[in-house]
């Protein structure tokens, strides 16, 4: 399995020319990263599989529109994000916005004292609403700017910053095991 190999211009050109083997190779090289991003955005393996498949379908259809000057992986992540947004909207789970300011968390022990590990962070991410998890994942894990996230989600840069602020606070509260508040 050539998952670690990058998708190069030669492979892309072959995919564009309709070479089925080349597209299979493209999927092989990117499938784990694509599935992982989908899973992080929707928080469910079965749904992530649907999102990832839908993303590949979109890639297959619109590969001709990909500009060579952009990095393929970045474009691919945007396609996956877009597919995840559509999925969450269809499920009515993306409208979970942040009308009410959450209650102030109760002070708890510092994170360092509780030796927080990766599982705790994963649990914290899973407990975030899709709207908050998406901005946090795209910003902290994939390094997208607030403007890029806003473009993908169809919201303003300011709205992204507000969600990011709340996502960080919520994550920190969940990890800390402090008072839970719905956002």
């Amino acid at each position, binding site marked *: 399995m050539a998952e670690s190999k990058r998708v190069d211009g030669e492979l892309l050109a072959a995919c564009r020319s309709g070479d089925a083997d080349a597209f299979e190779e493209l999927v092989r090289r990117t*499938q784990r990263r694509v599935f992982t991003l989908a*899973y992080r955005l929707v928080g469910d393996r079965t749904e992530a599989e649907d999102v990832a498949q839908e993303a590949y*379908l979109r890639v297959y259809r619109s590969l001709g529109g990909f500009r060579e000057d952009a990095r393929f992986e970045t474009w691919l992540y945007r396609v996956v994000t877009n597919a995840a947004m559509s999925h969450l909207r269809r499920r009515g789970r993306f409208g979970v916005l942040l009308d009410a300011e959450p209650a102030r968390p109760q002070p708890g022990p510092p994170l*360092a004292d509780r030796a*927080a590990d990766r599982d705790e962070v994963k649990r914290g*991410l899973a407990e975030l609403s899709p709207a908050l998890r998406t901005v946090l*994942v795209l910003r*902290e894990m994939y390094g997208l700017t607030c403007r890029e996230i806003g473009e993908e989600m169809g919201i303003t840069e300011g709205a992204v910053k507000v969600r990011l602020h709340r996502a*960080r606070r919520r994550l920190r509260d969940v990890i800390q095991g402090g008072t839970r508040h719905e956002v």
Partner: protein
Amino acid sequence: MKCDEVRLILPEYAGEDEPFPQEVEVHLATCTGCAAEERAYREALTLVSAIGGETEPLPPRFLEDVLSRLTRPDHARAAARRFAHDRSARYIRARYAAVSLGGVMVGAAALAIIRRRTARRAAA
């Protein structure tokens, strides 16, 4: 600044390259509670970033399912429709081009005839 004010600001700066405002820095240097809070944010986001490098195990037959979805009859039909649409769009564009070219040629011929007649009349 008070602790409440500082703690409201912390998530905004956590994980960003931008430094804290001076007054927050001063508070963090003297308040162990807020400093611990700030460290907790930093650690949490460092862990989030570290998890970003990991990948999830794929569902069984993921690759096969993706490929079979691409070749399913309904997608093949959709692709054929797109191809037919592209082809008809190309045909329409070619027809417009041909009609335009014809129009230009007819116009040029009419102009040439008018000029020739005008020249003949002038000569007569």
